[in-house]
């Protein structure tokens, strides 16, 4: 054990990893060159009438390719030893080979190779990818990633009876910024890791959306094939969900411990584990697009298609599964943190309101996620082991058969509540920011706090509203219609609290506040279109139409995307110590909000006109062409506005002027603490002596530092 650990920290191991990374990069490069060679160079020369003897050209190409490959691998390998450190290239290989990310990815690739090789040994010459070996490779690959990235190292040491200390700060002998690429246990570092990953994943999902949105701007097929279209919208859905879960992780991790006056999460190692599991999980989902014929089930993965379709579906199911795994672990961590780590005097009803939404979301995450886990496992078990949970083929007299509908029950028991995991933290951000920017107490604090729990609990009773036309028992329709309507009550509480908070306030409108107001307007569109879907007779017509697409994009953007962007702007000065550019922020807002209204309302309009969802092509006779073009333009505007935000944040983080300590004059603990936040959040422990949102009340204090005994 000791020997292995010492080896992994040696220069030689680093050089090996650098070399391996170099090999992968070089292989990709050669593959690109090769396709250029075969598609352009050879035919090009032929077209010019140049005749080269025999294989000469190919030989020349491969000679050059192998030279390039060797050069890259050797440079990378030597850079791992610290050579070429004066050059940018050399530093790149050197540092890359020290990151948990690269180690993990190599571990994952290596495990896949090993599993497939073993399968090759047993299958011999008729080796091919099967349900079984793909599933095994995927499962082990996640373990490989975790082992190699070092996430499990401490726990493995514990098993052998070695105590380990929490390591704070950059890894030994590395610069400070390497923390963000390493397995770090500090909740703020992990929060930022989540945030950056979330935004990157968002860009991947968004790019897919832009491609199929362009495809939809006219009837017929223009850009991509039907199969690619299917893979793209399926991948878009699940990748966006992964991004949202990461974004929730970002906000909850960064904020909850500071807001309750704690030094960190209750289980810092588990916290790192939760983040790092979602990386190999995301890689599985992305690779699902390229294996076999991709995956075309949509994000829901319904059988029978998911039990018989492309092998990529297995990778998608398992990627989804491991994301859920991470989600459960981090939810438990949040609940325990709030349970045992609150500062002195931080009573439950004195916590910043965001914490309440974080708890409510965590309650859903750590319970409901298990049932979707069961559903996903069952599909994989049916494919890999032949357990026919969803297979309706008769076996023998008297033996009951599997039922595809069972999947939908288990799936929606998670997937309805999970929409509240997406939106509750976002709604929490809205409630958190409104008092700050209207300089007034939050209206009805207790009601708002309890409404989050209410939404979470009612959310468990409504899942079958997704199945009104799926062939489930008719008698279940009305009960589920009624229970769904009840969601409106706690949601309404939140809306009225927002209005009450704004009412008569001294409102100011910096970018975060604009995004909060935009979020409310958009969430209102989503909230009003929900009951129309929950009503059985109308849903009969609207189900599987673009109306549904309009509805849930409005809820997701209003409940998550807009508040998340508000949060990014609002806490940016806290995180970086610098101020973002206000003009670019406003530009982002004024592009994105109207863009979104047009997109969402346009989707609902074509839905009413008969446009089906998840369809690559449509009949010009529907008369939706004009609106389709409008939606595509709106989507492009939204995409550009997001890029403006990224430019704004990145450039401001590097060079903008320093922000004041508490630019929004907030009372919340994270703003009262120094910037940047100390490693353990507060230089001295704090105590709560008042209510969180008494803005405008003279001499009211929320928290104060407990003076140390000796001072």
């Amino acid at each position, binding site marked *: 054990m000791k020997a292995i650990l010492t080896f992994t920290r040696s220069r030689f191991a680093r050089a090996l990893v650098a070399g391996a990374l170099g090999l992968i990069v070089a292989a990709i490069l050669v593959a690109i060159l090769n396709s250029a060679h075969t598609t352009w160079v050879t035919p090009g020369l032929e077209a010019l009438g140049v005749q080269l003897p025999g294989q000469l050209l190919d030989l020349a190409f491969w000679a050059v390719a192998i030279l390039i490959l060797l050069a890259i691998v050797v440079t990378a390998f030597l850079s791992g030893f610290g050579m070429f450190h004066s050059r940018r290239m050399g530093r790149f290989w050197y540092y890359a080979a020290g990151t948990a990310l690269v180690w993990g990815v190599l571990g994952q690739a290596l495990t896949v190779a090993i599993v497939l090789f073993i399968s090759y040994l047993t299958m011999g010459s008729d080796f091919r990818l099967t349900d079984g070996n793909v599933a095994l490779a995927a499962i082990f690959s996640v373990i490989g990633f975790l082992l190699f990235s070092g996430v499990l190292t401490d726990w493995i040491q514990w098993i052998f009876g070695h105590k380990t200390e929490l390591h704070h700060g950059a890894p030994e002998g590395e610069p400070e910024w390497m*923390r963000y690429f390493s397995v770090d246990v500090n909740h703020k570092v992990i929060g930022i890791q989540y945030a950056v990953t979330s935004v990157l994943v968002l860009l991947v999902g968004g790019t897919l959306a832009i491609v199929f949105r362009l495809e939809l701007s006219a009837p017929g097929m223009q850009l991509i094939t039907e199969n690619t279209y299917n893979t793209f919208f399926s991948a878009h859905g699940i990748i966006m969900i992964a991004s949202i879960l990461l974004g929730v992780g970002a906000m909850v991790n960064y904020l909850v411990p500071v807001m309750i006056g704690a030094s960190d999460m209750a289980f810092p190692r588990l916290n790192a584990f939760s983040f790092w599991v979602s990386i190999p999980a995301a890689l599985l989902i992305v690779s699902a697009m390229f294996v076999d014929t991709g995956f075309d089930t949509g994000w829901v993965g319904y059988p029978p298609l998911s039990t018989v379709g492309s092998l990529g579906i297995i990778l998608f199911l398992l990627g989804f599964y491991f994301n859920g795994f991470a989600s459960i672990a981090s939810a438990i961590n949040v609940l325990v943190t709030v349970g045992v780590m609150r500062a002195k005097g931080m009573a439950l009803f004195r916590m910043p309101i965001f914490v309440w939404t974080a708890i409510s979301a965590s309650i859903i995450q750590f319970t409901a996620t298990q049932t979707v886990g069961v559903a996903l496992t069952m599909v994989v078990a049916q494919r890999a082991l032949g*357990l026919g949970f969803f297979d309706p083929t008769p076996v023998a007299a008297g*033996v009951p058969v599997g039922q595809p509908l069972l999947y939908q*029950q288990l799936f929606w028991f998670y997937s309805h509540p999970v929409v509240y995991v997406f939106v509750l933290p976002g709604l929490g951000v809205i409630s958190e920011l409104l008092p700050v920017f209207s300089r007034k107490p939050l209206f009805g604090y207790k009601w708002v706090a309890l409404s989050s729990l209410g939404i979470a609990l009612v959310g468990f009773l409504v899942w079958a509203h997704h199945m009104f036309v799926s062939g489930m028992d008719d008698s279940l329709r009305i009960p589920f219609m009624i229970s769904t309507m009840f969601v409106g009550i706690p949601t309404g509480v939140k809306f009225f609290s927002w209005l009450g908070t704004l009412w008569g306030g001294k409102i100011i409108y910096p970018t975060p506040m604009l995004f909060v107001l935009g979020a409310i307007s958009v969430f209102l569109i989503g909230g009003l279109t929900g009951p129309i879907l929950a009503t059985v007779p109308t849903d009969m017509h609207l189900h599987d139409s673009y109306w549904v697409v309009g509805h849930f994009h409005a809820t997701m953007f209003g409940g998550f995307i807009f508040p998340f962007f508000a949060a990014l702007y609002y806490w940016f000065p806290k995180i970086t110590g610098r101020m973002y550019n206000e003009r670019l922020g406003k530009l982002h807002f004024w592009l994105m909000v109207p863009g979104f209204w047009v997109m969402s309302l346009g989707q609902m309009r074509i839905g009413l006109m008969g446009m089906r969802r998840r369809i690559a092509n449509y009949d010009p006779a529907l008369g939706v062409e004009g609106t389709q073009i409008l939606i595509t333009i709106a989507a492009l505007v939204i995409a550009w506005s997001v890029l403006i935000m990224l430019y704004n944040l990145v450039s401001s983080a590097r060079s903008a002027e320093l922000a004041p300590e508490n630019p929004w004059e907030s009372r919340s603990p994270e703003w009262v603490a120094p910037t940047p936040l100390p*490693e353990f959040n507060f230089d001295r422990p704090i105590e709560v002596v008042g209510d969180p949102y008494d803005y405008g009340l003279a001499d009211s204090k929320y928290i104060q530092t407990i003076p140390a005994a000796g001072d």
Partner: protein
Amino acid sequence: MSAVTTHHDDHAHDDTHAHELPYGQQLRANRLGLWLFLFSEVFLFVGLFAARFYLWRDASGVVRPELDQVAGLIATSVLLISSYFMVRAEVAVQHGEQKKMHNSLIMTFVMGSLFLLSVIFIEWGVLDLILDNMFGVTLFAHEAIKPGDGAFGAVFYGMTGMHALHVISGLVLILIILANGHKGAFTEERHWGVEACAVYWHYVDVVWIFFYPALYLIGTAVTYHT
């Protein structure tokens, strides 16, 4: 850019900057975390349980496959009794009786393994398969249920398999506790590892108390030939 300032002075190492939580607080956190995890797993098992009642139905009502009742009853009793030894181990460590803890853990491990073996070899019919292939004899009255036997096979293997996975992880936990106990990792006051292992083991037991009747007792038994 760095979002976190690090402390380089030893001022950072006074107790207001708890690197590790004080033992009492950590213990409370651990307990709460474990129980939340177990509550989370309830939803996993309830999902399987619900699938059983969803699928094992015909026009007449709830059905179940014909299983080997004697084997099932013996395995169940062995698992339940193993929990007694686990309790003994936990009480022993509280009194600082390392030897007794050690022996009780070994007993639990043996009984847990017996349960596991009986699931794999008898209930899953692996023993019959081996005997039949090698000697051409059949030992058990009932032909074991096969994975491909429609909803019977799927649910039976799904439920026993998921439970067996938990038994295996429980056994691994016991081994870890045994090994660390040898090195003197647990004292009368501080033995969170043993406590966690015990709670987990009882939990896996309780799950079986629900699974056993669902698989073996409830509903009309159906005989079939595939």
